[in-house]
């Protein structure tokens, strides 16, 4: 698990206080891509853990493939939604 940002709690409080929401279309994309890829990673790692077996190369490559898919999706989402103040 990533370390929380130093001001993460304040960010959550601000989101709640200012009622900042994500558009349902964006949530739909996030849910579809992230949840599906994580499910696949869970299956690969979970089946390895259940069997007590070492993660073989083929499955390690599959984990990488699905991790990269998450990264690719976030990059795409950033391209279309991620403009910050001052960005062109």
């Amino acid at each position, binding site marked *: 698990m990533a370390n929380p940002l130093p001001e993460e709690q304040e960010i959550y409080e601000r989101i709640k206080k200012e009622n900042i929401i994500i558009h349902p279309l964006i949530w739909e994309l996030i849910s579809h891509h992230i*949840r*599906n890829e994580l499910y*696949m990673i*869970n299956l690969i790692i979970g089946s390895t853990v259940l069997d007590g077996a070492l993660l073989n190369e083929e499955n390690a490559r599959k984990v990488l493939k699905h991790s990269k898919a998450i990264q690719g999706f976030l990059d795409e989402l950033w391209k279309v939604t991620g403009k910050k103040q001052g960005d062109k």
Partner: protein
Amino acid sequence: MLKKKIKLMVLDDERDICEFVKALFRKKGFSVSSALSGNEAIRKIKKLKPDVALLDIYLKKGLDGLEALKKIREISPLCRCVMVTWDSAVSKIKEAKAMGAVSYLVKPITITELLRVVYRAVSGIRKRGK
């Protein structure tokens, strides 16, 4: 291990998911088949009459998981259907349950959760058989 081989159908348009779920349940003593589309699932269900079906709702082409569920309830009413999807909308969950799904799992699911829900569906079959 199970006393009698329970027949499981996995419907998911992601090949990797089908393969992993198939391998997981075969190791547990199930007889497992899979389909990458709703239409393929219906064809196989007519022939194989599975006891339990794991149905993904959102599929790239053809019937979606809910349409497949509706057809399965017609052609194989004893089959216990578990929906597996990323969509956690309460309306979707209610719709699936109203159509006869016995469970509704929201991805990402852990293997432990998947096993627990499928075994629960199987225990429903065993109770029904008594």
